[in-house]
């Protein structure tokens, strides 16, 4: 399923809304999550999962081809932990 298909499903369920409104709704949700993570906040959606940002400290890596040491900067990466309810549904719905 891609974003446009998700938008279409929601639009079909809500015939009183314009497709453009539904697009804006879906975008607003993911923009809000993105903004929160960019601000260093956590996003916790019970039953779905939790988004957070993890810090990866600076380290000395190696170019696997040449074996040269390279400095890798500290970085922040998005992380997602699946919610309990969804994890359980994934394994019972078979």
């Amino acid at each position: 399923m891609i974003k446009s298909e998700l938008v279409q499903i929601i639009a079909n369920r809500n015939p009183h809304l314009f497709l453009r409104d539904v697009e804006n709704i879906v975008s607003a949700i993911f923009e809000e999550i993105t903004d929160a993570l960019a601000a260093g906040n956590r996003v916790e959606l019970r039953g779905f999962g939790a988004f957070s940002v993890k810090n990866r400290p600076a380290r000395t890596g190696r170019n696997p081809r040449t074996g040269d040491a390279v400095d890798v900067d500290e970085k922040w990466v998005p992380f997602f932990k699946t919610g309990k309810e969804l994890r359980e549904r994934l394994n019972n719905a078979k």
Partner: protein
Amino acid sequence: MSGKTVTRADLAEAVYRKVGLSRTESADLVESVLDEICDAIVRGESVKLSSFATFQVRDKNERIGRNPKTGEEVPILPRRVMTFKASNVLKNRILRSHNQRKAKAAK
């Protein structure tokens, strides 16, 4: 870092602010967007949200795990897990704003 936790209510508030529906309807729509994503994943579909992330389902085989406290071997049964792969847009956005904050803090 402010360390605030964003919840469904904040997502609903964002929809209310940006789209101009009632608060109740905004909350319902947030719920149905999350529900549709969950349902697709449970059906085994991958969900690709461009410029955000991809959610996929992976099948894990059975393997032998170990209780780290007792050292006891325990079988981990085959199961399905959901994976999250952030898009480059999301990763870069997070990296950029954290680097900016770090630069500001260093001044």
